[in-house]
């Protein structure tokens, strides 16, 4: 479903990055899309129009990435 939404967003030139799910969103390892908040109303419309199942939308603060080993 995440890949389906990514494809739809790519076709409309809406920026999205595939990411492991941040902990703020869920404890279940899996795929998430990171998008700009300003694109959210349009993305939510695309989700409804294409009947794409998502778990939830979570707002993340922009942060300075620092190296962290896995």
């Amino acid at each position, binding site marked *: *479903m*995440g*890949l389906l939404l*990514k494809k739809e967003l*790519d076709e409309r030139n809406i920026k999205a*990055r*595939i*990411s*492991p*799910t*941040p*902990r703020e969103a*869920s*404890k*279940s*390892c*899996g*795929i*998430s899309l*990171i998008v700009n908040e300003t694109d959210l109303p349009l993305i939510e419309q695309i989700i409804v129009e294409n009947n794409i199942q*998502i*778990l939830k939308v979570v707002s993340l603060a922009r942060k300075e*990435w*620092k*190296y*962290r*080993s*896995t």
Partner: protein
Amino acid sequence: MADYREMWANLGMDLEHHDVLCEVLPEAFGGIYLIQQDRPKGMDFYDFVVAEIHGVRPAEMMQHQKEGGKVFGTFCVYVPDEVVFAAGGIAAGLCGGSQFWVSGGEKVLPANTCPLIKASVGARLDKTCPFFLIPDMYVAENTCDGKKKAWEIMAGEVPLHIIDIPQMKRDRDIAAFEAEIKDFIAVVEKVTGNKITAESLGEAIKMINNKRRALQRVYNARKASPVPISGKDALLVTQINFYDDPARAAQMANNLADELEQRINNGTGVFPNNAVRIMISGTPMAIPNWKLHHIVESLGAAVVVEESCTGTRYFENLVDESATTLEGQIRALAERYMKTNCACFTPNSARIDDIVRLADEYKVDGIIDTNLQFCNLYSTESYLVKQVMTEHNLPIMHIETDYSEQDFEQLRTRVEAFLEMLRK
């Protein structure tokens, strides 16, 4: 977003401990990969695989087992995957690249063991990696003393077959490896219950060769300036190829190569034209070890090639596809695999010749020869590597490191000084 927790529980995984890794991955991947600009669209597939790193491929492997198939976990580029796939099995690379698993390995291994071995043993013993719990058999080898002894510990956990890799490259050594492949075929046939025929082995040889050709295309694109893909992204492609379905892996790498070739035609890249071009040579970087690439590229230089088992050694040299008998195919496999230049061989001057050749092909400005901490073989060989590179006027530095964050700033300072010297 799939929830794999039930699948992991059924595998007997330690979910609570595993959750620590799940917690770190998004931030580590975000900070190393997602901050990059202008990444090729073809990387979406690989990002997806990382996002579902312990879910999507393990689920496929378990489905294969449900349908009666067998899974073989492997640790080295000398294991001929062709044999496993020819018998209808799945071969998947198991090397551990995470600091998270190291402490688990340290419970049973000496402290002066390399992090790759510690992580691999820890991932199995701590039950925190599905890839280590799924295989019906591990296929190991004796490419270093650390591994040899580690397998004796692992053998108490899972059925294990060891391929005896010759340590020299005389004709009789190639013949010895041919005999090892024959033994391996017998083992794989017994485990899978399937007979390997000239037809099935021929198909498997073509399939794995196609993956090698696709990876070579991606690497060929890295010879261009400006370079159309970062070293970090190219490394991720190779790392995922170790355990992905080979036919799909070839398709995805070819899709990516199409895009990179288009970028070259358009003159677009991910680093400026004048960016310093670096080769990293030495020991493998198993997923998710992205440390050195991240240091180099965050300092504005591009890693354009890896002379390592997670680089050119993985895909250079094809198996001759012309043989039509099992005997001929086994000989062709032995000849191809014995062309791989690992520091476990003596002498290993062909590896040093490879580094000189790659420096020319990829137009590198400098070489970082690196080895995982306590890797005696590559560490010792670095002396001769440096000697020959100096003769060729190729700037080189040597780095020994592990998976931890502890030496990150120190390494950054050293790499920065090396890059400054190259820029003058």
